[in-house]
């Protein structure tokens, strides 16, 4: 099965991008070649390092489907740009524009009049048999007759220097965001070169794209959103990135709801009309009611809204029909019939086997070509691809193919195996060549299609035909299209002439996004708390007790870690009896174990939640989370290393502090902040109340040790000793940790913040007007304010502090009710399912 595909037969005839036939550098590469030649090898390596650091810290990833979200493979970038000469670019630009127009015209016809099929220009089978011919959309004309708002083609250079079209995308083309990110990184990696060469800028294209689409809603008011399949999609990074860049709300199917004949966004302030959907979700998944019923990603009823003309879909639903490789064979016909034009660029020679001639020709070419399903537009040789390499077929497989051709040849195509042209790469101080495919994008505007002056180049890791799918580990390059004249350096998103409406905040934030921020803050806070508890045990296990009156490791583990099940009762009992070997192993596992219920699991949860919420996080915040969740953890060795472990935990504490600081200083005081901080305050109040319960609810033999432990975990030891010297007593400790509204670690402080936030929460929907968050939080505030530290510290005959326990129970209950009230009024959504 894992047999490597052969080298391209024509690999030797590859077009040389760098050198002409006389061996001289082609002019558009001269400046780069000179600059690279002048660079010391270390310097190039350094630039790679800093570029990769940018890629890593910006969180540019590409999810491979069976991995968990947020754990996607790092985006592979080759920092050397691919340069296209002005002449080549002019041709490509014209060809992509022509193809985009053609794709749109074909879709308009197959979902409309059906002239192409009736006149025999395109075989009926290629439309009626196409799984992406969405019958629910037949007869539906999109606004202004625009089906294809964004279009892409994949090109590769043939041996003679001509460009050949390998694939086109008209449903939900991907790669735009990655192209933009590549540009950001590479232009910063070679700033001088980028400035000198006269490279076309990309920003204008994105503005055109966004403004043209939103312009189609003809002033109908409503949100413009970017619909993503969600964090599990391979290109989620790009969706979040594009949404930010284009100024759109990033939404998933669950965020939208159809009522009547309109589609709405579920926001904090209730439902808000959506007028434009930039769709990154494949068409057939868009509506489980009328399209694929098994789609959990779409919006039930969406097709009805489209039919009523109440939403602009970009791209319109059903564009997959023109992506089929079988249709490639009929595009020249269609171009002549629709426009009277010849195509500027040709496709890979393709035979559709649905005719007598096609069957014979297909069989004749099968051995030296590629056999595949006529409607399979997926990347060649990707995991789900139907493509079979003719040279791999056994005689028996050829016999079966012949039989299949007899019965149902309409679903088969055979195309030639066309070698990819080469992209220059710079390795070890010398130029070499890698097979390359170039994706170029066009966007619709009222004045015709415009082409993004650049693109996404993908280079294969080796020379095999199977190597070019991004899922199998190829790398990408930034594409520099050189301008003939001066470049348009416009780089802002807003058109300079239009006055931007000044806005301070909005309640249009999707509920799901707020839910994610709320939980991100809770997980981050929970992490910090766990680290502090673990560190207290580790310090004591390592013999650093800090003071003679302090509790020993065993007692601390029993009080703090046992209730959370991070250590077992047996381990604590053995340690109490003098053998702490097992306790050490378990504590280490709680810190470093990848599988254990412990710190690493919590850090993964932080990373995953941040990944889903990343369109709401500033780049710096994202980097702080990256630093926190990617600190070099030690491998659990089974040998306890007190110093190394303490250092690791100290690093994490500093990084959580950096994250909190960024949130405090940099998050605008709008809804993002509100829900983030609510999450943090609620979680911290829970944690501090629990800490007091586990240390002080029952008096111990050495009460001062318990008090010191509580102060240490709550980071309040300095304040305490400043106020009370070394008199460790229960009442002042309880006051400082629970009742003192000036201590940022005290429960009272958290409640005060929650009450403050409750006043800022949007009050729009009926359930929000009930104001339960405020009611519960204020109730708790009153309860805490009226508590008296000395009464709370009093012991009953069983040496328990019953007043304290009652207060802690009340705090716990009220916090739960507050958190539920936040969820009910603002965050929670009803589940839906197939009837």
């Amino acid at each position, binding site marked *: 099965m894992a047999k490597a595909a052969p080298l391209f037969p024509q690999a030797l005839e590859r077009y040389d991008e760098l050198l002409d036939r006389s061996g001289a550098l082609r002019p558009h590469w001269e400046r780069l070649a000179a600059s690279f030649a002048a660079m010391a090898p270390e310097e190039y390596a350094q630039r790679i390092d800093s570029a990769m650091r940018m890629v890593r810290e910006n969180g540019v990833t590409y999810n491979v489907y069976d991995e968990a979200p947020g754990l996607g493979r790092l985006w592979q970038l080759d920092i050397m740009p691919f340069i296209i000469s002005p002449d080549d670019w002019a041709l490509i630009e014209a060809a992509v524009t022509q193809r985009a127009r053609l794709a749109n015209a074909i879709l308009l016809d197959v979902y409309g009049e059906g002239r192409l*099929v*009736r006149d*025999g220009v395109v075989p*009926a*089978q290629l439309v*009626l*048999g196409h799984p992406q011919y969405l*019958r*629910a959309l*037949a007869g539906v004309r999109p606004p202004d007759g625009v089906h294809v708002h964004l279009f892409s083609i994949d090109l590769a250079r043939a041996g003679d220097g001509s460009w050949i079209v390998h694939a086109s995308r008209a449903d939900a083309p991907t790669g735009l965001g990655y192209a933009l990110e590549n540009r950001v990184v590479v232009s910063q990696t070679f700033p001088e070169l980028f400035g000198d060469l006269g490279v076309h800028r990309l920003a204008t294209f994105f503005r055109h794209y966004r403004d043209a689409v939103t312009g189609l809603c003809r002033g109908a008011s409503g949100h413009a959103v970017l619909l993503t399949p969600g964090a599990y999609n391979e290109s989620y990074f790009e969706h979040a990135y594009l949404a930010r860049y284009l100024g759109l709300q990033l939404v998933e199917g669950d965020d939208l*709801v*159809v*009522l*009547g004949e309109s589609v709405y966004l579920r926001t904090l302030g209730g439902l808000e009309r959506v007028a434009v959907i930039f769709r990154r979700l494949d068409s057939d998944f868009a509506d*489980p*009611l*009328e399209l694929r*019923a098994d789609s959990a990603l779409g919006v*039930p*009823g969406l097709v*009805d809204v489209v039919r009523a003309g109440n939403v602009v879909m970009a791209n319109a639903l059903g564009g997959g029909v023109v992506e089929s490789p079988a249709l490639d064979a009929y595009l020249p016909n269609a171009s002549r019939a629709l426009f009277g034009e010849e195509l500027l660029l040709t496709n890979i020679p393709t035979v559709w086997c*649905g*005719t*007598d001639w096609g069957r014979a020709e297909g069989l004749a070419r099968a051995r030296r070509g590629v056999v595949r399903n006529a409607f399979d537009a997926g990347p060649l040789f990707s995991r789900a691809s139907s493509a079979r390499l003719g040279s791999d077929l056994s005689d028996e497989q050829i016999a079966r193919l012949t*039989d299949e051709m007899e*019965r*149902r040849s*309409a*679903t088969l195509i055979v195309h030639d195996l066309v070698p990819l042209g080469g992209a220059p790469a710079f390795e070890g101080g010398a130029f070499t060549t890698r097979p390359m495919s170039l994706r170029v994008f066009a966007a619709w505007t009222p004045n015709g299609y415009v082409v993004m002056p650049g693109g996404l180049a993908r280079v294969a890791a080796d020379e095999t035909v199977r190597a070019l799918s991004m899922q199998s580990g190829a790398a990408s390059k930034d594409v520099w299209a050189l301008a003939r004249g001066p470049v348009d350096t416009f780089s802002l998103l807003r058109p300079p002439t239009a006055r931007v409406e000044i806005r301070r905040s909005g309640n249009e934030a999707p509920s799901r996004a707020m839910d994610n921020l709320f939980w991100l803050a809770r997980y981050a806070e929970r992490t910090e708390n766990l680290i502090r508890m673990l560190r207290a045990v580790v310090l004591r296990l390592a013999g650093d007790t800090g003071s003679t009156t302090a509790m020993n490791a065993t007692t601390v583990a029993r009080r703090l870690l046992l209730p959370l099940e991070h250590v077992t009762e047996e381990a604590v009992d053995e340690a109490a009896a003098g053998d702490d070997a097992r306790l050490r192993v378990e504590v280490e596992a709680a810190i470093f174990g990848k599988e254990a219920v412990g710190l690493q699991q919590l850090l993964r949860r932080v990373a995953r939640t941040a990944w889903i919420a990343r369109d709401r996080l500033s780049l710096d915040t994202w980097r702080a989370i990256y630093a926190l969740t990617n600190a070099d953890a030690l491998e659990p060795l089974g040998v306890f290393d007190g110093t190394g472990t303490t250092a690791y935990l100290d690093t994490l504490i500093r990084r959580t502090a950096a994250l909190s600081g960024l949130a405090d200083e940099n998050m605008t005081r709008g809804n993002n902040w509100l829900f983030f901080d609510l999450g943090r305050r609620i979680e911290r109040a829970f944690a501090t109340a629990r800490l007091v319960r586990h240390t002080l609810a029952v008096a111990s033999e050495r009460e001062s040790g318990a008090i010191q432990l509580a102060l240490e975990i709550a980071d309040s030891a300095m304040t305490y000793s400043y106020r009370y010297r070394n008199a460790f007593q229960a009442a002042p400790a309880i006051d400082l940790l629970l009742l003192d509204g000036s201590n940022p670690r005290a429960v009272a402080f958290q409640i005060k913040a929650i009450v403050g936030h409750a006043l800022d929460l949007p009050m729009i929907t009926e359930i929000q007007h009930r104001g339960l968050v405020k009611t519960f939080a204020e109730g708790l505030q009153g309860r805490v304010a009226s508590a008296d530290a000395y009464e709370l510290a009093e012991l009953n005959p069983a040496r328990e502090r019953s007043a304290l326990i009652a207060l802690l129970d009340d705090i716990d209950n009220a916090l739960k009710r507050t958190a539920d009230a936040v969820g009910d009024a603002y965050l929670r959504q*009803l*589940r*839906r*399912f*197939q*009837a």
Partner: protein
Amino acid sequence: MNYTISHRTTYRYGSDVVYSRLVAHLAPRTTARQRPHTFEVTLSPGPLKRFARLDFFGNTTSWFTIDERHDVLEILAESHVGVEPLAEPAPELSRSWESVRAAFEFPTDPQLLEPLQYTFDTPLTATNDDVVAYARQSFGRGRPLLACVLELNSRIHSDFTFDKEATDTQTTVKEAFELKAGVCQDLAHVGLAAVRTMGLAARYVSGYLLTHPPPGKERLIGADASHAWFSVWIPPFGWIDFDPTNDVLPSGEHITVAWGRDYRDVAPVHGIVTGGGDHEVDVAVDVMPHVSA
């Protein structure tokens, strides 16, 4: 023969449903042998909005949105239909299956575009080696297409066990072949997949069947079920129906509701509800013949 048909679907939800959008394929079609006289759907609770629309295949679909909180939903479809018996076509009058297939190649005749779309697989009915081998046995060289499908229909009837427990509405042809069992939906899928894999056109038909009580017993109200069979494009006759569950050609006792590429195109009721939790469905069908027209 005239019939009054009532088709009652009851959903019982574990918790309240706050909003639902439903699409139903419940209205009997007009065909050469069938005349629907009346058709009515009643919902409880009543819908906020309803409308009817023809789908791509020409079936009448009924659309409902309900925004009233409920934990029981009842959909009652009542129709009154007249059906003429089939004049049995003579197998030898049909063309060879190879020539029918060849005609699909250049569908210059616009009338061929309609059957052409039923020559392709669907996810539920995708073909495989088992299906090809099974179909081939009935498609001898040069044999009239009608003769091929009649034999196929009888073979499915004898080779597949009718078993209500073996499958559900999402069972694929591949699974049905492994089980060699299923309900009328599965047997119809097997039939159409076998015809399609030979490059010919077959569609899925949903409807009702008049059932006969055992001798000496009363008809039981509500004991009938919705039924399904398949139909094949057989020139010069056009579409001819085959019921593999009963090994018959549907005639005056089969009432046609809707057709499509497979079950999913014509599911009696499907939709999306918000809320609801777990749910149970109960279906009761009653096909009542009228003594006189």
